[in-house]
């Protein structure tokens, strides 16, 4: 597949920013509204798959290599696990914390003034401790993972159909 017609490309150009913004909104508000890292990541990855269908896999591979996407996915996984281990680390640095593996160490303290409030209702994005950060890490992982699956499968099955 080497791209579709001009109508499809134009409609994709119009619809692509809205899909991206909606997916990133779902990721960023994962602790307040329905959604989260996995769902928002799936929305963003489907938008990228729309680009892949409209412009063809050869054009997309010319823009972004799957090696870089794999690095991005590993970065998301490392961020997630290091956030999980950070609760243990903070016990040794500050004696006032009580942390275990996967403990929500940012909630209910005043040392680090970010994400440390308890959520009461919508529009309070500065809440819920490490849950938004974990949402971003998992969202990055899901975006890169799903897009690299679709990209590799589309680019590898191109050969027989092209010739």
């Amino acid at each position, binding site marked *: 597949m080497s791209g579709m017609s001009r109508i499809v490309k134009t409609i994709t150009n119009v619809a692509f920013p809205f899909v991206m913004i909606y997916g990133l909104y779902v990721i960023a508000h994962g602790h307040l509204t329905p959604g989260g890292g996995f769902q928002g990541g799936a929305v963003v990855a489907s938008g990228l798959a729309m680009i892949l269908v409209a412009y063809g896999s050869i054009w997309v591979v010319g823009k972004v290599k799957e090696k870089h996407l794999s690095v991005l996915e590993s970065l998301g996984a490392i961020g997630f696990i290091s956030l999980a281990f950070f609760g243990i680390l903070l016990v040794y640095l500050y004696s006032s914390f009580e942390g275990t593996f996967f403990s929500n160490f940012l909630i209910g303290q005043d040392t680090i003034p970010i994400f440390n409030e308890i959520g*009461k*209702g919508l529009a309070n994005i500065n809440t819920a401790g490490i849950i938004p950060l974990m949402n971003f890490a998992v969202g990055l992982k899901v975006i890169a993972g799903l897009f690299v699956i679709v990209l590799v499968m589309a680019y590898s099955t191109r050969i027989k159909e092209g010739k």
Partner: protein
Amino acid sequence: MSGRNFAAIIFFAIVAVFLVFSALMMHPFGEFDEEHYPEMDQYIIDNTQNETGADNGVTGVVFDYRGFDTLGEATVLFTAVAGVIILFRRLKK
């Protein structure tokens, strides 16, 4: 041909009978009596706003109460991506 089909039909019939009877004998949809009261879920609903700070109860469960589950899920996704890339490694050019 016929022997294999016969065994498949017997297996399918047994599983279908068990599934239909278990569906008819479930508790009524949406009702919980005193014996099967969901204590753990009620605790999570009551305390998720004060313990995790999240308004969304499902996100509180996924990333805080059951973080190990999410860690295993991320591992499964990573393994699937690695498997797909390895399977299409030689077909690249």
